[in-house]
């Protein structure tokens, strides 16, 4: 492992993003635009918007980073740059952490823009600090990145990779409690939601924005960190120096 190689990888990924202005604009504009849309969709029932709005600030980075990472990694595989890196003295962890670092930076900016719009202009309220919401948003971005990195190994085309988002993330968001309380779900779904990382990401966000901290919040954070580590290790296992 080398700090310099991790840093160089992060800078390289950021340079790629910097050259892709439109992607950068979409990453920063789409989440606040969607929140604004939701605000007016729920114009007649502001209570609903007040309930689902704040956690969404933290869930957007998860979805966006998942998508971007799985496509970026797939591109590394198909263009041969991954094979080249694997034939060089670069530790797999340096590559993964480099990606994580770069996307955490992007997520920080995204979370800052989205929180500003949400909490200053759209009138959303968080009982916890905006900084804590931002920190969770970054953790979610890293979780999304780690999941995307791992799952990209199972996609051989971009068509497949983009569909992992509805296939893997949508069910998790549906089961997380965002749309309906988990306590009201059939038992089997309730159990399933207990096993999915996005459930804990959502729970942590509602606890912070609802001003309810405590031991459960730390459990949520612990599970998220565990899921990040597990995905990174599984992701590292899919990076091969030798291929068939």
């Amino acid at each position: 492992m080398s700090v310099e190689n991790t840093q160089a990888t992060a800078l390289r990924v950021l340079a790629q993003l910097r050259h892709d202005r439109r992607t950068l604009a979409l990453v920063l504009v789409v989440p606040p635009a969607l929140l604004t849309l939701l605000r007016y969709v729920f114009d007649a029932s502001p209570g609903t918007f007040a309930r689902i709005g704040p956690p969404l600030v933290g869930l957007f980075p998860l979805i966006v980073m998942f998508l971007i990472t799985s496509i970026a990694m797939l591109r590394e595989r198909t263009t041969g740059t991954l094979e080249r890196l694997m034939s060089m003295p670069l530790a797999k962890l340096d590559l993964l952490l480099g990606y994580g670092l770069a996307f955490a930076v992007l997520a920080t900016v995204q979370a800052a823009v989205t929180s500003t719009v949400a909490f200053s202009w759209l009138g959303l309220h968080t009982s916890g600090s905006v900084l804590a919401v931002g920190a969770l948003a970054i953790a979610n971005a890293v979780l999304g990145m780690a999941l995307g990195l791992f799952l990209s190994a199972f996609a051989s085309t971009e068509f497949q990779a983009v569909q992992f988002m509805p296939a893997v993330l949508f069910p998790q968001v549906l089961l997380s409690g965002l749309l309906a309380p988990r306590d009201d779900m059939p038992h089997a779904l309730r159990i399933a939601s207990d096993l999915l990382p996005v459930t804990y990401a959502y729970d942590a966000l509602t606890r912070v924005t609802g001003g309810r901290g405590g031991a459960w919040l730390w459990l949520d954070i612990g599970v998220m960190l565990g899921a990040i580590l597990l995905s990174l290790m599984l992701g590292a296992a899919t990076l091969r120096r030798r291929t068939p």
Partner: protein
Amino acid sequence: MSSPAVEVRVLRVRRGGTVVLPGVSLQIPVGSVTGLLGPSGSGKTTLLRAIVGVQRVESGEVRVLGEPAGTPVQRRRVAYVTQAPSVYTDLTVRENLRYFAQIMGAEASRIDAVADTVGLRAHLGARVAALSGGERSRASLAVALLGGPKLLALDEPTVGLDPVLRRDLWGMFHRLADDGATLLVSSHVMDEAERCDHLVFMREGQIIASASPDQIRRQTGKDDLEDAFIALAEEG
């Protein structure tokens, strides 16, 4: 011959269910420009990949500069240029070289040096996506030169290049070999055989000759190396 740069013993490789290399053996002399020639589908790329250490092999042994292929020590002294350029097309040539130089632990001064070597000095600030196919190949080659490799394996590096550039590139290969590096260059174009110190002819996963151009001419009695290849293939 001192200990060879590359030594392959009864190498067997299967890719996607079919046996590509049924059991080849080969030695490549140090400091040579060796041409790996044969039609497409003859197993050249698979053999190169095995030597570079990125190919999963079924059995047999591959040693590079006295050590097994694909071990961590080889990652600093073996460089591989794939047929499709492996560089980031959304970055500039300089950004690509800067990143790979860091990974290879190469000095920053190497960036300008390798850009000069492949004739891309004027294109350092250009995005790879904006370059022509030949320029992209050379950018990919420049990356491989960063670490000053002891063994440089190149898969069809001259495809689509202008004849003048092709000549320059072969001149550069020989200069690198004069400095002690070993070059292994695959090609399906027979007229490139003339430019090599050592030739390895491949056909259907088998090595049908491994010798200097003169030795091959003497052995087959053919002046033209393409005729020599045909004679060796029909002897089979």
